[in-house]
């Protein structure tokens, strides 16, 4: 059960119980560096809980999580992002609604530009210079995801699909190694889905970012992912090439039963 120190994420026997309810029943899997790995399964199969246990939102009941050999089990969420460079998205809380589109990105880049806590209180020329650099970086990313024209709009007032694109751009600001996306395409119109897939592919190709994507849209998953994991009732029931996995009888049965 030793971790794979080369893996982007090495999950070893992660289980999460809430009283007598078992949400995740001991999962071990390695996410290789540079892969786009899909994670799917019926509702309540434990996908989100597994995500939560890997990113510090919940502490696993048993098991350990390693990021390139670094044991991050039980760390606070902000520390996992800062030190292991593993960042995640949420299904519902997408952006900071009161801030402008650009400020959302600046905020997400702060953990790199203002690494020490004392530096976050600076208001001098050095701080202004750092913020200016973050704004430049933000401008670049907004161009990539096609939101340049909304730079100064209030994030809460743009469409939900655009918020998801903004969320994606925000996650690239702190130069992560691993991105865990929780349903990036839910509630997004087909044109924006294509754009989202293009963005994921480009970040993976050009920056070598590893992705784990929770998603119900199986067509999108087949087109996007190198590998597909399927959970059912807290257990991993399939792991392999997307085309083969969706034909797996156990997977078909889980979906029909779920």
């Amino acid at each position, binding site marked *: 059960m030793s971790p794979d120190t080369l893996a982007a994420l090495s999950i070893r026997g992660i289980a999460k119980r809430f009283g007598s309810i078992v949400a995740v029943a001991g999962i071990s899997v390695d996410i290789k560096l540079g892969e786009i790995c899909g994670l799917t399964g019926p509702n309540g199969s434990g996908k989100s809980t597994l995500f939560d246990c890997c990113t510090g*939102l919940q502490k696993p009941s048993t098991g350990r999580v390693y990021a390139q050999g670094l044991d991050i089990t039980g760390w*606070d969420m*902000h520390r996992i992002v800062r030190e292991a460079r593993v960042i995640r998205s949420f299904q519902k*809380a997408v952006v900071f609604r009161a801030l402008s589109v650009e400020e959302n990105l600046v905020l997400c880049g702060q953990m790199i530009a203002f690494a020490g*806590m004392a530096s976050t209180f600076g208001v001098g020329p050095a701080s202004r210079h750092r913020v200016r650099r973050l704004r430049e970086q933000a401008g670049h990313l907004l161009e990539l995801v096609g939101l340049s024209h909304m730079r100064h709009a209030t994030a809460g*007032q743009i469409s939900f699909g655009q918020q998801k694109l903004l969320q994606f751009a925000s996650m690239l600001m*702190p130069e992560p190694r691993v991105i865990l996306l929780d349903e990036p395409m839910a509630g997004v119109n087909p044109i924006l889905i294509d754009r989202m897939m293009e963005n994921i592919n480009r970040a993976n190709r050009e920056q070598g970012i590893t992705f784990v994507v929770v998603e119900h849209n199986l067509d999108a998953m087949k087109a996007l992912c190198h590998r597909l994991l399927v959970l059912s009732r807290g257990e991993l029931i399939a792991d392999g090439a997307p085309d083969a996995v969706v034909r797996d009888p156990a997977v078909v049965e889980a979906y029909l039963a779920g």
Partner: protein
Amino acid sequence: MATMQLHEVNTHGSHIYNNPRHGLRITGFVVLVVALAAAPLVAGEYQLHALIVSMTFLLPALGLNLILGYAGMLSFAQMAFFGIGAYSSALTAMRWGTPFWLNLIIGGLAAGVVAVPLGIPALRLRRYSFVMCTLGFAVIAQTVAKNLVSVTRGDLGLSQVPRPRIALWSGGFEVTGITSYYYLALTLAVLAVVAFLALVSSAAGRYMIAIREDETLAASVGTPTWHYRMIAFALSAVFAGVGGSFYVHYFTVISPTVFDPFYANTVLVIVLGGGVGTVGGVVLGSFLFVAASEALRIAPDLRMIAYGLLLIVIVFACPEGLLPLFMRKLDGLKGRTHVA
């Protein structure tokens, strides 16, 4: 649905960055400071007194604005910190004859230092539990002030607190006249507003807004949320403590009544009525609500009833506070000029 979402958006605090009204805000601030600096030329002693009281309340109000408007937590402990600042500052000045600037620092630090052990358990609580905890703290602070007679002289309170002495250490001169007090209060108020603006427009201020918006989302982008909530809480206490220090050296007396809910409510009214999460709103609120409370003294029997009615009217007319209402009206006017 789309319009529903529009109304739900809370943009408080976001005005700090890239605001098209930035020039207007700076002009407004400068005009206000110049007008206030010229006030002693026209205002009588009583009006100056009312302005001094307004500027004294501005400090705990800015503190509450930081914790409520930026970090998103409602605290009733502000006036308790104000009282702690006042008592500690008065006691050191009476015992050791410390100069005014040092008293301000002592008042601010004492409040900030007390906030940390209170914050450690309280900040783990959520929403209403946190509010109750700060309310409990205010009650305890008053009880201590009443019963620690050997230090605080109980209900008698402290009197003959030294007037502000402007000196590096010993010697110097004492501030006595109302005009000198007035300029001292104005200087302090301007410094407090500048410090507040610097804080909320820094990277730390952005983290605080992020926490108010969504704490989990803030943590997911690397914000050590607990630390920043603690910093916001302690700094809000520092603002209140400095205000308390000035208060005690102006009135030269302090008693446990400073911990009465009335004062805590006044600070809350200033922030909510003026415009939570805005700086201009809190400044406006301080002058307006303290002035209103003073002006209503002409009818002492009906004073508190009239004050209460005024609050109810404001809540109905502009639930977001006076400043946001004023700004919308201003935008409306601009819109009309465009059409014309």
